């Protein structure tokens, strides 16, 4: 299908650790995204969700990381992995842009908000300073910053955390990108501020039709904002489907465990279900299923061979040998 805005296929990322030591951080990740859709990537720390997203903007350190063979990232049908660095600079910021987790550290403390924003606009468009200034003022207004003209001359320390994140969003949107990658945009913020920012992200999607990749570990954020969900574990996609389908009917044992281990607000829970054990080390990944050592449904087959990502009915993709059987268990 060519209507997809972004199509990622067989993406693999290795970190180079000394001469002959390659650590596979992301393995066989494929997904696609259409205009005006929000894809949520969830998983625990170290599962490769941020690395996947950063690789879309080619922001990983060059000497110490590489895409594995056969990786393909297509934006509007154009292959991005083969572009030269110079060509890629045209893409980064203009067609794909990114919001980072820490609004405190992702803005330069010694430059004014205006200067940082205008730099980006002027780098991608041939326009005068005056026009760039106006564009930035307008962007700040769009993201809900009052007295935006005055704010342009202020420094990041003069703004609160929520305001800084709004500035980051304004900056990321100032060149009207078709894809926005948001890496845990609300994790560092308080709940009431988080609610404001999530509301803003939904507005952007509706008004500008921007496709958004939202990385988070908060299942609540996923349920309320995204259209599609990709659950990652130890560098692989374990489950992928629409958000409603995943929440109503999780199939992979990891997703099921994740859902059951969240304390709920609207009901008192006597005891939380847990996933025993911890994530395996990237250096010594098991040869079979990566979740096998924590999986309650694990069999010998799971320990021996790695399961493929299977396409089921609808859009569901699951990486599990026992997918039919766990399904029955999860239905309870």
């Amino acid at each position, binding site marked *: 299908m060519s209507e997809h805005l972004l199509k990622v296929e067989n993406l693999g990322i290795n970190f180079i650790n000394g001469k002959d030591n390659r650590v596979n951080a992301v393995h066989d990740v494929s997904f696609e995204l259409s205009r005006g859709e929000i894809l949520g990537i969830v998983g625990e720390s170290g599962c490769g969700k941020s690395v996947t997203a950063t690789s879309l903007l080619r922001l990983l350190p060059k000497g110490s990381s590489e895409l594995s063979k056969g990786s393909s990232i297509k934006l509007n049908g154009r292959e991005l992995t083969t572009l030269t660095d110079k060509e890629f600079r045209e893409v980064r910021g203009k067609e794909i842009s990114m919001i980072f987790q820490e609004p405190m550290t992702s803005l330069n403390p010694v430059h004014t908000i205006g200067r940082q924003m205008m730099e980006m606009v002027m780098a991608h468009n041939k326009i005068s300073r005056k026009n760039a200034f106006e564009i930035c003022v307008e962007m700040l207004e769009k993201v809900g910053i009052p007295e935006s003209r005055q704010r342009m001359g202020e420094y990041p320390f003069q703004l609160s955390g929520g305001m800084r994140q709004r500035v980051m969003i304004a900056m990321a949107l100032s060149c009207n990108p078709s894809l926005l990658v948001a890496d845990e945009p609300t994790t560092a913020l308080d709940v009431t501020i988080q609610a404001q920012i999530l509301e803003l992200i939904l507005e952007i999607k509706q008004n500008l039709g921007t496709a958004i990749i939202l990385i988070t570990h908060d299942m609540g954020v996923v349920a309320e904002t995204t259209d599609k969900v990709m659950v990652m574990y130890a560098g692989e996609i374990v489950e992928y489907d629409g958000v409603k389908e995943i929440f109503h009917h999780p199939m992979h044992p990891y997703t099921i465990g994740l859902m059951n281990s969240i304390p709920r*607000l609207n009901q008192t829970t006597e005891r939380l279900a847990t996933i025993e054990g911890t994530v395996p080390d990237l250096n010594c990944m098991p040869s079979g299923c990566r979740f096998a050592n924590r999986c309650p449904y694990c069999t010998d087959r799971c320990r021996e061979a790695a399961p493929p990502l299977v396409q089921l009915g609808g859009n569901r993709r699951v990486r599990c040998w026992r997918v039919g059987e766990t399904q029955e268990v999860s239905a309870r």
Partner: protein
Amino acid sequence: MNAQKELLRVEHIRKYFAIHRKYGNPKGNYLRAVHDVSFTINEGEVLGLVGESGCGKATLGRTILKLHSVTAGDIYFKGENIVNYGFKKMLPIRRDMQMIFQDPFASLNPRMTIEKIIRAPLDTFKIGEPRYRRDHVAEMLKKVGLNADHMNKFPHEMSGGQRQRVVIARAMISNPSFVVCDEPVSALDVSVRAQVLNLMKDMQQELGTAYLFVSHDLSTVRYICNRIAVMYLGHIVEIADADELFNNPKHPYTKALLSAIPVPDVDQKRQRIILQGDVPSPMNPPAGCAFSTRCPLAGSKCEQLHPDLVACGAPGHYVACFWPE
């Protein structure tokens, strides 16, 4: 559980931090982290303390343990007023009040083995005979879901969840009757978080310890606490039994806080109250109600007068608002 026996009573406690005159503060103002807070904790009870960052919840927890000096107010622990106790007089009491810290990567000494870390309270308070202390540590490790092999390890050899278990073991080994838990699971991943929360709940029920559970995460608090206090800008704005607070919140801030939490449920579309603006600076708080600058109900009375905590509705439910609903 030993119901309804009062363990700790805090009365009108205040903690102000002095700000250096040099740093844009010519008047020599104070940062009012905790401002006139009173509450009690019964034996074996878990009181949750929730609020956004900077509301003074962690400062309050530390002040009760006298890790900060107290600016004003009284702390009665088992009937004794400990506010003016010095280091020496506090020492025997410290055995009975412990703390679990937020970040297990920072709260364990990297140069000490796990055995030494967990043993420290036993040595300090001279609990048991020295030759049995090692067995005591091993027993404690088993209780928190680790095993005796971990004794000779160092903190860096363990994962975040395991380290937090060590922190819990250290806090619990002197068998305290009161533990302040300062965001004990915020630094952990979801699946590990559930393990640690279950452990804390088990320990609490087994040993009958009272917790002051400080957290910004309301769903965690709901899972573990009997009673919940909501803080905003140094004040407690609402305090009630857990079920009562969630089913029947009265303070506008509590309502906004509850509605702001993303719920992991795709079918539930809730009416969300989105608060405008940010929390005011505790260096320069509003004259009247602390919440008046963001409150949808605020009137001129709210801007001038400060509301006290008053009983409202169900027994044990207190709200600091002129217009509780």
